[in-house]
């Protein structure tokens, strides 16, 4: 997670995910998950293009089209607050305020240690437990200010 992937490691991930055009999203998501900065850099995009016998432009088009694929470095934990209507009207805007207070940064800015940032995301399909925060593949629901505090503490500890 914390060190840069070598070309061999990246190639292994591409091969594990099928190494064909149909699997490009799985491949890019897997590379992103394994990357140090939580994103796919230009070098990685070039490698994917080579392995899939396509062009860098085409891979970049995919990377930029899909919002879960990042092309710029990210904080270690990006807290995604759902702000679609069902969550928004069950107080997801308050969650955003709590995060701003707890982390001491504005939405979209990383903390100085690079550990956290937060942003809005469209519906993650957990409206029955809104307001929610999604961190990587996990969704935390029925949030209160205390639960948000606890989540941040737990993430800090697990780092």
């Amino acid at each position, binding site marked *: 997670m914390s060190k840069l992937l070598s070309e061999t490691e990246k190639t292994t991930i591409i091969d594990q995910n099928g190494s064909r055009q149909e699997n*490009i999203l*799985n491949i890019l998501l897997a590379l992103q998950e394994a990357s140090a900065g939580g994103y796919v850099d230009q070098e990685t995009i070039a490698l994917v293009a080579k392995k899939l016998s396509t062009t860098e432009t085409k891979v970049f088009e995919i990377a930029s089209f899909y919002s879960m694929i990042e092309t710029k470095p990210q904080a270690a934990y990006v807290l995604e607050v759902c702000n679609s*209507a069902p969550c*928004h009207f069950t107080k997801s805007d308050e969650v955003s305020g709590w995060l701003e207070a707890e982390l001491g940064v504005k939405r979209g800015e990383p903390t100085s240690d690079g550990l956290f940032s937060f942003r809005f995301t469209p519906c993650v*399909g957990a409206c*029955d437990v809104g307001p929610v925060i*999604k961190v990587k593949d996990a969704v935390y629901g029925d949030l209160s200010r205390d639960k948000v505090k606890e989540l941040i503490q737990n993430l800090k500890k697990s780092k």
Partner: protein
Amino acid sequence: MSMKEPVLLKRVGKMKNPASVEEYRQLGGFSAIQKAIEIGKDQILNEVDTANLRGRGGAAYPAGRKWRQLFAIEEGPKYIVCNADEGEPGTFKDKVLLAEDPLSVIEGMLVAGYLFDSPEGFIYIRGEYRAIQKVFQEAIDNACAAGLLGTDILGVKGFDYTIAVVSGAGAYVCGENSALLNSVEGKAGRPRVKPPHLAEVGLYSQPTLVNNVETFACIPVILNIGGQAFLEMGTEDGGGTKLVCLSGHIKNRGTYEVPLGTPLADLLYSEEYGGGTSSGRPVKFLHLGGQSGPLAFPEQLDGLYSYQGLADKGLAVGSGAIVVLDDSVSLVEYSKKVLEFFVHESCGKCTPCRIGTTRALELLDDFASDKAKAEDIDNLDTMLANINGLSACGLGQAAGVAVRTAIKHRKEEFSSAARG
């Protein structure tokens, strides 16, 4: 999760390992594919027709008709695709099936694979459900190991069929079937211009069936209990039960299996389902079927939750989402949230959708900040009508539905906000 004897959710929560073929079998699983092989292809089509199963993704297109159209096409190979890109805000029901009874979806796709002599099925699961993709893959692997996927399935010579999981990566527009096929092919998920119909020119330009998760899960039920019994669980204009998602300002949020034809008021107020508002305040409006669906106001809620019952009131079942909003919510603010969503999710292919949604949102900002003039209500409505009329796919065509129903039924709220 209500209803005395659920048929879609009957195994949910009852299996230790939802991906286990053995447990699925013990609870009645894989009897439908067996039966499908016994009764033969014409009879499968007849049962699905009789059941009057309407597409559960949102469009409500009769599955029987879709299946017959594909069946009539002679070219092949034909592909089976399951749309598990559940992205309509307020919808979280496919997730329940994918995570807690994945083999029911696999069995539905297996019946389709048999019927259409398909070599391969694909299930496109949204990127936000990465954890569930793993469960689903495990279920596929178990089905393969048990000889239910692979070659000569169930001893039927030449019944060779596999299913692959494809991940989405955060694009609402991929819920649109032609965009989804582009995404499965590893391209940017922009919709195609139709015609040609996907049944004729679908995945890899081959004839293709695309159905929603819940639609596929209904197939084993239909074969097990019979099309007629399935029809009778619902109403004449749409058989079966529907998974409904209650969220927003409602006491009992969650996924419920309800017979089509249940009074809408029961879904909201009975303790068995919604139990009334969470705040104790009156319901101001509902948002049905996702962000692309219409708003429903209290005077429209006296009918049945069925395809025709809602259509009679100018409403729609859509994905099954019911978002409840109490009287603390301003319609201008709500409309802004809806448009913000479409601005974010428009893929940018059609100019009216890409630019129109942004301009409509700017106009709504004017209403929210006392800058709008009285004539802006009609301007907004016309702008949304044009986006709907000039966009190529369902996203743009539905982007204005909610706000237009708000203007239609509660124009006075926009008028009182037009103070510029």
